[in-house]
């Protein structure tokens, strides 16, 4: 399985280089204009584009069909995609702290911003991965686009909600509830993806 993750990062290498440059640009832009919301939007957008890319490269090369001739199980094919996103997500989450620290945002607020970015990303992955496994990138494009729009709206609405709720709800409930909810959603997504891949024929 480790080999599968390495393969995905080899595919992403070029794209990651561009992404890093763009992030630095948006970060500087955010610091200069003292507005970091742009950066967070871009962060969310990129965290959505990366999974799409890894599916796309594999589809183009018809990798899955070949991978099954190697000592790789169908489960491995599923889990590796989630793991790649996890790794990318960890890096992006750490990055998400940078603009808030740079603009002097209070730690708690920046933590909730990061949490929302992370949760939105995972919800997106949990919903889009089974679709991508089932239909492939080309056929899912339209659905994925709609979902990206919905996720962006959810993100903006969500962060507003968080800000208004933090007055009434103790933050600690939120900080525990959202990760737990995300884990449940991810687990369900993986189970569905396992079923889809178990039956898929190449």
């Amino acid at each position: 399985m480790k080999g599968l993750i390495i393969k995905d990062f080899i595919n992403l290498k070029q794209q990651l280089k561009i992404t890093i440059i763009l992030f630095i640009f948006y970060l500087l832009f955010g610091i200069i204009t003292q507005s970091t919301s742009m950066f967070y939007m871009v962060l969310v957008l990129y965290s959505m584009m990366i999974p799409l890319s890894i599916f796309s490269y594999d589809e183009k090369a018809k990798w899955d069909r070949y991978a099954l001739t190697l000592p790789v199980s169908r489960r491995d094919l599923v889990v590796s995609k989630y793991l790649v996103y996890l790794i990318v997500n960890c890096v992006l989450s750490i990055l998400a702290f940078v603009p808030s620290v740079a603009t002097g945002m209070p730690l708690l607020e920046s933590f909730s911003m990061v949490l929302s970015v992370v949760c939105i990303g995972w919800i997106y992955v949990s919903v889009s991965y089974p679709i991508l496994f089932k239909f492939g990138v080309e056929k899912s494009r339209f659905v994925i686009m709609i979902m990206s729009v919905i996720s962006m709206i959810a993100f903006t609405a969500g962060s507003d909600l968080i800000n208004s709720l933090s007055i009434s709800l103790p933050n600690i409930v939120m900080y525990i509830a959202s990760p737990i909810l995300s884990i449940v959603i991810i687990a369900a997504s993986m189970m569905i993806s396992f079923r889809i891949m178990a039956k898929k024929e190449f």
Partner: protein
Amino acid sequence: MQNALELKNITKNHKDFTLDNVSFSLPKGCIMGFIGENGAGKSTTIRLILDIAKRDGGELSVLGETDISNNAAIKEHIGVVMDETNFPDTATARNINLIMKNIFRTWNEEVYHGYIKRFGLPLKKAIKDYSRGMKMKLAISVALSHDSKLLILDEATSGLDPIVRDEILDVFLDFIQDEEKSILMSSHIVSDLEKICDYITLIHSGKIIFSESKDQLMEKYSIVKCSQDQLEAIASSAIIGARHNKFGSEALVLRDHVPTGFVCDPPTLEEIMLYNIKGGK
């Protein structure tokens, strides 16, 4: 385990195509050529052997294992080369080594680099810039760089020039020197198969026409050339297929059933295949 591969009544139903009770066995230590026209079912059969597609009926054993779906580890011992390369476009031969050594427990880096060098492949060039021959050589290098006991090649030499094909066939002959190793190769290039195969299996429209040793086939059949009238002297059941033109007739016949007086030539594998498929009396 005497047979590297055993297929018994394998069936698969597709909307416009059916694999119908496909049965054959590949004895250990042998090379089997799998021939048939385009769309006859060669690739489908191979995909079923590798569990890339699911069968609707029949039994299958690969290297003695009957349940390959839940046994990914058996693939350590199967080397596969398909007709298209499936490696990431931007990867290099060096990247492939890194990927494969983290997939195969039995990956041997030295052997891999040995083949890369033998085939003259560049280490740092992206695969998208490879020629077709180079891509095939890379895929073959990968298939031979782990503990493969069974090589499955699906049209691995198609689209390659005769020089490259010859190089590759030599590599396969080296591989088969070990009695524990076997090869199943599907190809249209019947002359390649004639050179190196011990067994030949012919598939046509999803059905196996024959699966026999090459020597037996060569002894069993003859090409007879005579006039159409003379051909009538041979029993119809002994004529596999015939071609007639205004100069005379040519037929593939069962040698034992030919009366004396006819000139019998040894058939080529291609003639055996063509007459078995086209028939005609």
